[in-house]
């Protein structure tokens, strides 16, 4: 990940972590307090519970002890012992039975009483256990030795209620223990849940951070790549950044900068090229112009100094003289154009009203205006251009000349040309549209090259001069043309700034 991405993710994490860490400790504190409160409460609860259980245990033990004592008391009942010792006697046996019943009556919790001999045979019994129903009572059998005889077996009954209470206590204790167990887990659960929340928040923060970083860095790296391409000389590079924000604004600015760079590089190289050709033109004009006058003079002398009467020779001289004069004239014109090209004046801009400029141009070139149908559509509001009046007229002249020549060469009866002016941001656009023959693609591509011409009589300098002038005005010129559909030149020129 990029350093930028790391920073963003880091910031997001920090944002998520700080409040969470703070609240984590807070929650820990709260849980601890709650825990100690609960612990205190628990001690208030469990200790009495344990004591109560012990009380029940003691109660049961004491109760059993009492019953045992009761059994002992019965077993040592002198009347009973006496009757037992006389058991062989029929009457005594009946009385023994009666005594047993009396004893059962005397002891409310006693249900049955048996006298058992050494061989385990039941000698006498009293049974009133039907009074104790099994639902509500449980029993306890206690045997006690009878002096010198056998055993006394007593069956006591006791209410089941305390036992039920005791097991209820047991259940309560168990529930208390369960809750206790849970409580000690609970703090852990809360902590863990908090950590879960924490983790989730961190993950979300990280994801959001990554997402933002990824998006931004991706866009930034697009920009970086484009910048590298531009640095390597590719001025066609443009970046496309979706989503409107500072980064995409940067991209727009970048694109604008690159197109300006491309335009100015084009301007510079074109002007350099033209400069070189101007130098060539200047030399050529110089070299050709100088011998022209001697040649013409020499030819004139040859022509006029001949005094012989050879008709044929005379004719030959006349022809040669004509040819030389004509060609020298042509060369002179060429030299004139060359040196005009070479000596193009530098731009002296001033505020010029477009409408006045064009009207002025049409007036001063009436002969050209006669050779074509020119329709001039001035801008809706008057506008002042920041241009060199003379040079712009020169531009218009060259363009119009080309249109007229093209139409005438194509054998059209009239060259129809329209010129219009429109406001655009920061400047004005002049559009010159003709309905002439148009140009082939190859011609369009080379139209602005110096010395490129498709005409026998052409110098190929017209459009080169036009472009040089426009570029020196910091303007632009474009041509659009298709064979048979006419040609359109679009010129962008700066407006005069207010106050200049």
């Amino acid at each position, binding site marked *: 990940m990029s350093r930028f991405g790391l920073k963003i993710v880091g910031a997001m994490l920090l944002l998520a972590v700080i409040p969470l860490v703070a609240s984590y400790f807070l929650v820990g504190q709260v849980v601890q307090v709650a825990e100690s409160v609960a612990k205190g409460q628990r001690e208030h609860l469990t200790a009495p519970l344990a004591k109560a259980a012990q009380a029940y*245990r003691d109660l049961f033990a004491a109760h059993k002890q009492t019953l045992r004592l009761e059994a002992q008391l019965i077993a040592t009942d002198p009347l009973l012992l006496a009757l037992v010792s006389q058991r062989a006697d029929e009457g005594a046996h009946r009385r023994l039975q009666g005594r047993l019943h009396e004893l059962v009556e005397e002891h409310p919790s006693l249900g049955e009483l048996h006298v058992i001999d050494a061989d385990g045979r039941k000698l006498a019994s009293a049974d009133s256990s039907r009074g104790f129903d099994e639902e509500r009572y449980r029993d306890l059998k206690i045997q006690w030795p009878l002096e010198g005889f056998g055993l006394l077996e007593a069956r006591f009954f006791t209410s089941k209620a305390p036992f039920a209470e005791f097991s209820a206590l047991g259940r309560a204790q168990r529930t208390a223990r369960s809750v206790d167990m849970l409580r000690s887990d609970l703090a852990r659960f809360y902590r863990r849940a908090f950590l879960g929340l924490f983790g989730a928040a961190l993950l979300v923060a990280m994801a959001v951070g990554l997402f933002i970083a990824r998006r931004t860095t991706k866009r930034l790296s697009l920009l970086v790549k484009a910048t590298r391409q531009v640095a390597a000389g590719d001025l066609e590079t443009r970046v496309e950044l979706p989503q409107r924000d500072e980064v995409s604004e940067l991209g727009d600015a970048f694109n604008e900068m690159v197109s300006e760079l491309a335009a100015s590089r084009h301007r510079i190289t074109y002007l350099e090229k033209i400069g070189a050709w101007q130098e060539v033109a200047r030399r050529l004009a110089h070299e050709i112009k100088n011998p022209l006058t001697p040649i013409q003079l020499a030819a004139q002398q040859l022509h006029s100094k001949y005094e012989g009467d050879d008709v044929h020779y005379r004719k030959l001289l006349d022809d040669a003289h004509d040819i030389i004069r004509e060609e020298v004239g042509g060369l002179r014109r060429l030299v004139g154009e060359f040196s005009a090209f070479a000596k193009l004046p530098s731009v002296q801009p001033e505020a010029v009203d477009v409408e006045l400029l064009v009207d002025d141009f049409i007036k001063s070139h009436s002969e050209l205006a006669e050779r074509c149908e020119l329709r001039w559509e001035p801008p809706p509001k008057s506008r002042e251009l920041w241009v060199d009046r003379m040079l712009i007229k020169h531009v218009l002249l060259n363009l119009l000349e080309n249109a007229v020549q093209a139409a005438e060469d194509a054998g059209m009866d009239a060259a129809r040309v329209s010129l219009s002016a429109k406001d655009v941001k920061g400047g004005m656009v002049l559009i010159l549209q003709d309905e002439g023959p148009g140009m082939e693609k190859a011609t369009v591509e080379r139209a602005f090259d110096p010395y490129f011409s498709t005409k026998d009589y052409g110098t190929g300098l017209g459009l080169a001069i036009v472009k040089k002038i426009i570029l020196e005005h910091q303007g632009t010129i474009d041509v659009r043309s298709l064979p048979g559909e006419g040609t359109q030149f679009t010129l962008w020129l700066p407006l005069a700034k207010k106050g200049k």
Partner: protein
Amino acid sequence: MRTVSPSPLSPNPAAPGSFRLPGSLLCLGLVLLFGAKVEAKPVVTKTADFVQHGGTVLMSAGFREMFDARLRRRLRSGFATTVTMRVYLYQRTIRRPVLALSRRLSAVYDLWDEQFLVRFDGPLGPRAQRFRSINDVVDRLTSFWRFPLVSTSRIKSGKRYYVAVVVEVNPMSRKVLAAVRRWLRKPTRRQVGGESLFGSFVSIFVNDEIRRAEKTFKFRTQDFFLP
């Protein structure tokens, strides 16, 4: 003997309807962030006795060591002690158990009769057994004696099997568990309607993790196979 839903050795199978997915997702996050803190106690391996008898495999095994002094004290207290055992039969290398059984015993010391009473489900319904010595009770609670494990028809001969057992002493009652879940979701009674958000969030973590018994003991047996 009842058949319970098959579950691996985990003592706490998730309650039905618990939110497993978000919980596990969050756990995943936690694991990623803090590293897992897994409390994996190694499972004891015990030697059990497997015999074939009348078309049934019988298992005998004992694990009395799980009854420590505290549990013995509790056994003598007069309050009931419940022991549940979940028995899983596994075929070696297969993750899901072949079958799962459960068994439940409860023992109480009768303070009146001064003897132990052990209740359990026999093949013919509930049964009770009385013991005088605590060691006998502990043995009864912590052993399988000729426990009918599985019908031999369900055992593939030559394949290796083993049994895993989860023993829980005094497991929490369903009622208490349900109450705890409710408390967690609605910590205060005064809250009208909606459950507390953090509460339900916490309950995600609790459901799978609640300690459900006073003591849990797990072991597995050695492998056995039928020729």
